[in-house]
Structures are given as C-alpha cells and as structure tokens.
C-alpha cells in the first residue's frame, strides 16, 4: 500500500481511512470473529428488546452481575452493610455463629445458593455463546448460499458456453466439408488437388 506524502502534509485520519478501506477490500464480505460477536450481540439485543430487557444485556450482565444475579459466599449471611456499626454487628454474629449452629445447619443452604449463583452465570454465558455460535452458523449458511448461487450462475454460463462451442464445431465441420472437399488438414490434400484434372 502506498500513500502520496506531500511535504509536511501528512493526515493521520486520511491514512486511517485508507487503511480501513483496504481492510474492507481484503475481507470481501468475510467477517472477523470480533464482528461476528458484535452482530451476535445485536441480534441478541433485538430479541431481548422485544421482551423489554436491557438492550445491552450481556455487557450489562458482565459489568453489573449484582443487578442480574447475586453473589453468595460462606460469609454473605453474616455480613452487614452498615459501615462501622456493621463491623461490630459482624463481630457479634461471628461470636454467636457456633450457638446458632445448634439450632440449624446453614451450610447446605449456603452451598446450594452459592452453586445456584455460579450456575446462573454459566447459563447466561452458555446462552450468549450459543447465540454467537448460531449467528456464526447463520452467516456461514448465508455465505454458502451466496457461493452456491454464484456457482450455479457459473455452471449455467459454462453450460451455455459449452452448447455454443458445440454448435460452432458442428457449424465449422459443416462449412469445412463444403470448402475443403473432405480432405483433412495436413493429410496431403495438395497431392489430391494435384490429381485433379487440369
């Protein structure tokens, strides 16, 4: 790729525009992984919008899982969000923890909720990845359809060409009979002609 540089007249924006144009030309309709991801997310957005979901759901889910999911660890049920007082409260709860365990066993609940929180995250990512893969397959199918159409067009063209060429050969054969007296080229036609009566 060459650019004409006029003295100090370098324009970074113009160069970047040319770079992007060149990339477009090179790609010729092929999508990068990044673009497929983008398209996939757009399609997902459209589906989610119809159900009044956040249009930026997947990125929102990633950046703010607390809004869509919950975090649950072994300490969650003992925590407090009351600043300094909360610290004291947490301390008291820690001291009383063995006592409350006499009445019930919170461990299965903690384990189940914690596992469920992880599962929620996995499910969302699984669904998102499936959407990406389906979109990728859609694009591939679309691409294959286009190529199929192109090949079909070429095939038809070749068939027409073949037919035309066959007709031409037949025509030349016909005209050869009339003009050459049945002699094959290079088969001593001259001699035969020499045998012709003067």
């Amino acid at each position, binding site marked *: 790729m060459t650019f004409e540089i006029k003295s100090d007249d*370098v324009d970074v924006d113009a160069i970047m525009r040319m770079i992007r144009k060149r*990339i477009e030309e090179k790609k010729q309709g092929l999508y990068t992984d990044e673009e497929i991801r983008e398209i996939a997310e757009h399609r997902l957005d459209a589906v989610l919008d119809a159900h009044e979901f956040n249009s930026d759901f997947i990125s929102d889910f990633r950046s703010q899982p607390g809004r869509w999911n919950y*975090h649950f660890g072994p300490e969650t049920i003992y925590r407090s969000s009351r600043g300094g007082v909360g610290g004291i409260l947490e301390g008291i709860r820690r001291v009383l923890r063995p006592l409350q365990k006499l009445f019930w066993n919170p461990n299965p609940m903690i384990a189940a909720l914690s596992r469920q929180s992880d599962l929620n995250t996995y499910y969302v990512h699984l669904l998102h990845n499936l959407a990406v893969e389906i979109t990728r397959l859609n694009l591939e199918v679309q691409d294959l359809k286009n190529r199929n159409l192109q090949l079909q067009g070429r095939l038809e063209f070749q068939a027409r060409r073949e037919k035309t060429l066959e007709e031409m050969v037949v025509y030349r054969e016909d005209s050869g009979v009339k003009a050459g007296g049945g002699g094959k080229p290079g088969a001593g036609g001259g001699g035969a002609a020499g045998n012709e009566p003067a």
Partner: protein
Amino acid sequence: MKLAFVVQRYGLDIAGGAEYHCRLVAEHMARHAEVEVLTTCAADYLTWANHYPEGLEVLNGIPVRRFKVKRPRDPGAFADWTDRVFRASHDPADELRWLEEQGPFSPRLVRHVARHRDDHDLFIFFSYRYYPTYHGLAAVRDKALLVPTCEEDGIYRLSIFPPLFRVPRAIVYNSVEERALIETVSDNQDVPGDVVGVGSALPEALDAEGFRRRSGLTGTYALYVGRIDENKGCRQLFEFFRRYRAETGSRLQLALIGKAVIEIPPDAGIVHLGFLSDEEKWNALAACDLLVMPSRLESLSMVTLEAWWAQRPVLVNGKCEVLRGQTRRANAGLYYTSYEEFREALALLESDAVLRSHLGKNGRKYFDSHYTWDIVESKYLSLIARASQIARAPDAGPARSKGDAASVS
C-alpha cells in the same frame, strides 16, 4: 509561596506514571516556590508495605516527608471489596472501605495534611483514586489543586468520586479526553482547570548508533517501553506482532524495555532488553523506527511524548481515547482497534520511511508546542494563581457554591 505535593509514593527509584509525573513537576516547581512532598513510606504499589523510613529526607533538593502506611494491602480482602463495589449492589460506605483496602492506608499522612494546612499556600494532590488524595483533599479543600491522572477504568464512576472532582480549587488535566471524561461524570465545568500534562527530563545528546551496536538490533525495529504487563496490553501486542510476522514474512523486530511481569513468548522477533537507564532508554528511542503503545488505559503516556521528542512515529491502541486523540491531534502516528488495523498500520509504517519521518517531525512539533517545561510550568503557575485567589475567598469557591463539598468526608 509554599506548595505541598501529596502523592501515594515518592522516590528516585519509583518509575510509576503518576509518581514520576509528580516528582518531575515538584522538582520543576521548586524553581518558583518553596516545595515539600508529603507521601507514604511505601515503595510497592501492590502491597503498599512500608519500605522507606518515616520522617524527612531530601531528594534532588526537595524535602520529602514520609508517613507510615497503617497496614499493607490484603490482596484477598481487596479482591473481595473490588468484587463488591464493581459487581454488586452496594452503598458509598462500601466504596470508602474499598478505598481503604486499596491503600495506601495512611491516616497519619491525612492527619498531617489537616494539621499543617496553614503551613502551605496550596496542596497539590496526585491521583484521585487513592486514600491520601481522597481524604487529604477533603481536609484542605479550599487550598487544594488536583492532578487526577484519571484513566478509563471505570473507577471514576464510583459514587464517591464525582463529588471529589467538584471540591478542589483547580484541576490539572493530562489530556482533553481526561477532562471530558471527568466533566461528564462530575459536571464540574465551573472548577478552573487546564490541560497541562507533563514535560520530560530531556537528554543532552542521543547515541542511536551506539545503542544499536550495544543491543545487537541491526534491522528495523519497533520499541515498547514500560512495564511488560497484561494490563498494559502486552499480551495482545505479542499475539498481534507474532501473527503479523508470520502472515507478512516481515523481519521487523520488537524490542522491549522494562520489567517483565508476564512471560515473554520465545520468538526470534521479540527481544527483551530488560530495565535500562534513562540515558539508554533515550538512545533506544532515537534508534528505533517506531514506538508501540498497546495500553488501553492511559491518562497520559510520557513515553509516547518522549518518542515524539525523538522524532519517532507511534503506533497506539486506538481503544484508548487519550492515546488515539493525542495521536490524531499531533498527526504523529497511527492507531489500531483490531488485528487487521494493526497489521495494515504496522506494514505501512515499516515499509514507508518517508511517512515515518514526516510523522516523527509532526510529533516533535506537537511536543515543542505543548510539553516543554516552560509551557508546563507556566500553565501550573497560572492555575496556582487562580486557585490561590479562590483560596483567599473560599466562599466564592465552585464546590461550595454547588453545595456538594459536604458529600466528600
């Protein structure tokens, strides 16, 4: 005039961006005012463990007063609190706790700032996101000037920070993009501010040929200077660069200067030169064909400015608004937001020496018109004068007039 610079770490051996920035500014402002630096005893930004002795020492003629960090960072607790404030519903008290866990947690430093507020005319705080700035600035709000060094990492969106940006008497921004980002999130347009950045400790002479001999770099090479870290975009750079060489058959080399935090892939095209002296770094800049800056999070890339001073073009990560904006304004490099753009831009820079030369010259012009110390110092002095005027009449200050200073504890 007496100025106090407040920063999370300070030392001749500290290469961190905001800390080095603070040191350079403090040393240059010492020509115009009586300067003192107030900082912690920490040297390591990951642990904030006390390293330097507490008390007063003099570094390059600047008195530096250090205060102990009360407790080093607990990585587990910090990760938990980060998870909580960035990923779960939470309240401002959680964010303040996160600030403490992030460190450097030095209440002594903050107490000293509050108690000695009358010893200084102005306090210049560096890096909005750390405990000393957040609480120190609140203690001397009518005498505070802030150098936020804000990056697009989302931290500035935490609810405790927008009010902070409305508190100081003036703000020194590193770039137009940083200013826009902060103004958008905090609506602080009435706080006086200017885009200043920082100058560099420029070398007397450059020895490009000598560097090439010593390093064994004979052909064209792209240079990366900085911490070799995933957060700086190095992993992606290695991946793109190796793919570029494989696809194009290029013999371009990538030279790396800096401490490696991640593994550098074994590749004939990638040469790690380790940690070099400032002088040798400048020689490497003068000898290289272009500088690569793959970081996505930068408030100001000093090495990019230094490359421009050395008349070298840059190839920067276009996903970083600051780097892309500066490169476009300077007309002194190209940028990429995908591998395809990286490949085309690098191929162009590698193959076109005339283009490299023109971009490099544009870089030097940009540096000379914005980042010489004369310009940087005069902008600081102008902002200090404006901040001092407001400081003498605190009721007229922008933060109080908006009525949100009280929201910063």
